[in-house]
């Protein structure tokens, strides 16, 4: 019963977050500074999601060669930068992870 209550509250909260600005009437203008700030949201948020996964090993910063996730991530970044292809980035990144795992 509690789990269902949690699910319903989470659904309502999450939907409210998504609909918050989208449902504002068109004549409402957001402040200039806010609009300029929003310009950087996708790059900032989407990057912040993956950097800890590459740079941290068991919660500790690791820039060593033994951090094969960092090495594979660099390969994936290069693929994404050069080709911008989602599937190729994921496939080559996973392949690189296995290769580096064997090497080091």
């Amino acid at each position: 019963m509690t789990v269902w209550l949690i699910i319903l509250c989470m659904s309502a909260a999450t939907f409210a977050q998504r609909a918050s600005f989208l449902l504002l009437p068109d004549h409402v203008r957001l402040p200039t500074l806010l609009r300029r700030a929003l310009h950087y949201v996708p790059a900032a948020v989407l990057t912040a999601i993956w950097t800890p996964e590459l740079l941290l090993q068991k919660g500790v910063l690791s820039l060593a060669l033994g951090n094969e996730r960092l090495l594979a991530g660099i390969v994936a970044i290069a693929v994404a930068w050069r080709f911008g292809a989602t599937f190729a980035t994921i496939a080559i990144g996973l392949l690189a992870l296995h290769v580096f795992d064997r090497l080091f």
Partner: protein
Amino acid sequence: MAAAGISPLEAMAMSVLVYAGAAMLAAVQLIAEGAPAMVIVVAAFVVNLRLFMYSASIRPYFAGESLARRLIVSYNLVDNPYALFLQRFGTRPDAPGKFEYFAGIAVPVWICWQATVAAGLLLGNQLPAAWKLDFAAPLAFIAMSIPLLRDRLMVIAAVSAGLTAVLAHGLPLRLGLALAAMVGIAAGVLAERFLKAEPK
């Protein structure tokens, strides 16, 4: 999920109703730890703070659309459709077919997501950990974020946010992500001012 004391039906309902992976992972962890319901809902809210920003930043592209379409976009406002949409329309907000394009991404993403969750619930932990498939998640976010770095202001915002996320990793309730977003956005806005550069 099963180990966390959540039935497959509850997990599937959460997947369809909440439709937010990071919040679900956080909630399942907290339910397993026996956290109070209020704490779990607040944690999910914090993990999803970026959705406010997505909602605000995507809003101008859907000006003039009907309430029904805005509700559909709202429900489907998840990372992948959002990122792909802005890759295409970010530099030409007046191009036609925005809702159709968004829906064209959002529907297959929804189907794949729900099918994958269902498969995960059925298979459980039978997929070998040696395949390292968990690494596909950060790779997907690399694929989404790197093409957005079209100018140096974007790079400054992304690098600042990325480093902050690493440094603030230990904060509870995944607050590090919200903090990193704010630092990255502030860095972009400040760089714009000091470099006297125009965002593209």
